[in-house]
């Protein structure tokens, strides 16, 4: 299944992804980085297109993670 995955070392916590997510699956964790709620994410890729740092990507994720 495809899901958004955030590479934390590049994330600037600007919140563009969270604002764009149509399912409100992304939140900014304590101003540090974006966290994706995998149960809500449908892998649409809107966040990936919006992310200015290129830290959030839609990838094939195996169940459980």
């Amino acid at each position, binding site marked *: 299944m495809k899901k958004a995955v955030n590479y934390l070392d590049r994330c*600037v*916590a*600007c*919140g563009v992804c969270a604002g764009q997510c149509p399912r409100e699956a992304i939140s900014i964790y*304590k*101003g540090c980085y974006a966290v994706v709620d995998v149960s809500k994410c449908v892998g649409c890729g809107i966040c990936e*297109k919006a992310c*200015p740092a290129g830290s959030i990507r839609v990838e094939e994720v195996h169940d459980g993670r």
Partner: protein
Amino acid sequence: MAGKKKKHWYDYLWIWTIIYFVLGFFNILFAWLGMIDFILPLIFAIVGGNKWFCNHMCGRGQLFWVLGRNMKCSRRKQAPKWISSKWFRYGFLTFFLTMFGTMVFQTYLVFSGAESLRKAIKLFWTFKVPWQWAYNGSIFPDWVAQFSFGFYSLMLTSTLIGLIVMALYKERTWCSFCPMGTMTQGICKIKNRSGK
């Protein structure tokens, strides 16, 4: 979620960014209002330990989105990796704070009488642009106006850099190396580490 998200009053703060520059064009003293955009994000970060300002209230970021996405003024291509790398972000922050310090020192020189007020804007810390129409004296001492010219220069220069990277790369590429963003994220990271 069906349909569009509910709009809040703070979703329109991009208008504030435009108003700010227009006001400063007519009277430079309005430049002081830009301090709100400096202090508010820091308060959010230091007191709240969050980047709520960046995430929801940044008028500049919103303006880049409106121009870049809604008005299609952006190539929407991924910026080179080094732009959001740690060394560039912290390097740019250091450079920015140094320039801010220089500007405050210039204000001090006018305050102390060592230099006189210069009614000009400096773009990209290099190009002088005459701006004398925006100030014809006021009840405030000259250093207040000197700070205004310096601060307005800083705000305009950084917005122009943001517009350039918006056009070339993603809409809000500026956010990935914005000095305020780097600073507030750094504060949040420190707070989060020591808070637990």
